[in-house]
């Protein structure tokens, strides 16, 4: 084998047996922060060692194991066996609360479905970002409903079966009305007169009607 250091120069001590040398290479490769060259191995190991030979044994030993000795440039390092790469990935599910904007948008869709984006914005008083709608579509809690038969034929949104399942509802009509919200302490008692919430709107509803929100409470 190559890289045998000065064969002529007799060492005072015998070089460690090859098995011992293999242990040394194993430990050095393991602990090193970078791949290690044969020259570096020889420099670190006791006089008379043959790192190249020990390395050859070590590579053989790790063949088919969970890690292998691989060559990186002219240096060597331990690496996970490629077929076990899947173990090095960890899928972590992170549960996050839905944002306030998303919850409000979702609530409006649930209480007013089918509802157009313009209507949602009218009710919330702020624009609804694409991202919010996309997120809810993505979660499959809302889907597109029929197009509204009004100028521009805007799309409407409705809640899905997944939505109902998640919230334990049989239908969107089971959502509590304003009076129940108030009874549950979710509404301020200073609220205006009682009214029920329409759980769905007929398709003939005109967008123009959305002007005054109060109408929504009048049934």
């Amino acid at each position, binding site marked *: 084998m190559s890289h045998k250091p000065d064969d002529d120069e007799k060492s005072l001590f015998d070089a460690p047996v090859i098995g011992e040398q293999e242990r040394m290479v194993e430990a050095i490769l*393991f602990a090193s922060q970078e791949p290690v060259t044969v020259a570096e191995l020889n420099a670190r190991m006791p006089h008379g060692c043959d790192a190249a030979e020990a390395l050859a044994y070590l590579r053989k030993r790790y063949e088919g194991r969970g890690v292998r000795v691989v060559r990186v440039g002219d240096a060597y390092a331990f*690496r996970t066996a490629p077929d076990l790469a899947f173990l*090095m990935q960890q*899928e972590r599910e992170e549960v996050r609360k839905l944002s306030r904007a998303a919850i409000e948008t979702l*609530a*409006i869709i*649930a209480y007013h479905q089918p509802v157009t984006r313009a209507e949602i914005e009218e009710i919330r*008083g702020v624009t609804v970002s694409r991202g919010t709608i996309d997120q809810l579509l993505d979660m499959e809690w809302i889907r597109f409903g029929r197009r509204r038969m009004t100028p521009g034929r805007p799309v409407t949104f409705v809640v899905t079966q997944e939505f109902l399942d*998640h919230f334990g509802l049989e239908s969107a009509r089971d959502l509590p009305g304003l009076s129940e*919200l108030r009874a549950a302490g979710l509404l301020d008692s200073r609220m205006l007169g009682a009214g029920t919430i329409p759980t769905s709107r007929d398709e003939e509803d005109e967008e123009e009607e959305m002007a005054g929100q109060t109408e929504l409470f009048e049934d």
Partner: protein
Amino acid sequence: MDDLFSSDPRGRGDGATVEDRLAAEALIVDVEGFEGPLDVLLTLSRTQKVDLRRVSVLRLAQQYLAFVEKAKKLRIELAADYLVMAAWLTFLKSRLLLPPDPTEDGPTGEELAAHLAFQLERLQAMRDAAAQLMARDQLGRDFFARGLPEDVERVRKVRYTATILDLMRGYARIRTKDDFRPFVLDRDSILTMEEALERMRGLIGFVGEWVDLSTYLPDGWVDDPKRRRTATAATFAASLELVKEGRAEIRQTETFAPIQLRRRERRREP
């Protein structure tokens, strides 16, 4: 603990032996190096050259008192706890030497002495244990972890969730925007941006010249620093809103200079 008394050659003398005085003198040299009175006692006990369980506490007390005496003579400032220990050992000594007083509560002198001996032994044991611990092979010194760890790639998957209560609260919040403010305290000393904006909308149309922002502050919001601060912030925010709407212009000639505002002339319709 029979030997508690036996190794005091002069029986009940409160003076110390020559040996004790020499020991005390040796200690004085590096009193700074000691970790408190118990450490000194432990060092002193070593001069007795016996198993710590057989140490003569009475003699130890005398050695310690000799040490404190010596320090006093040499005008070495001893920390208060050294003197507290001295006082306590004097008390212990008297308990050990005098016949027990049956009317007195609490542990006997012998019990106290035994406990002190226990403490010394325990401290010594802990020091030995610490030395053994530090003599062990240590990670990063004698044995090593993988130098090139292969990180686990974390694939993050976010799942959003909400409860029906969130949904209802959300809806209630929208439907009662003006009335429903369950978590907001009414604060008299806060001028909101909306209030300021409403006010400014009314005023700005009349001002064609550059006028300091501060003149827009409503009456009654100028004197109290707290009210002035909130009014200034709200008015400033409202001005920016007006600028954004194209109804006003705003300028500041240099850093920290007064902020000025004027109506923006509407472009004539073509």
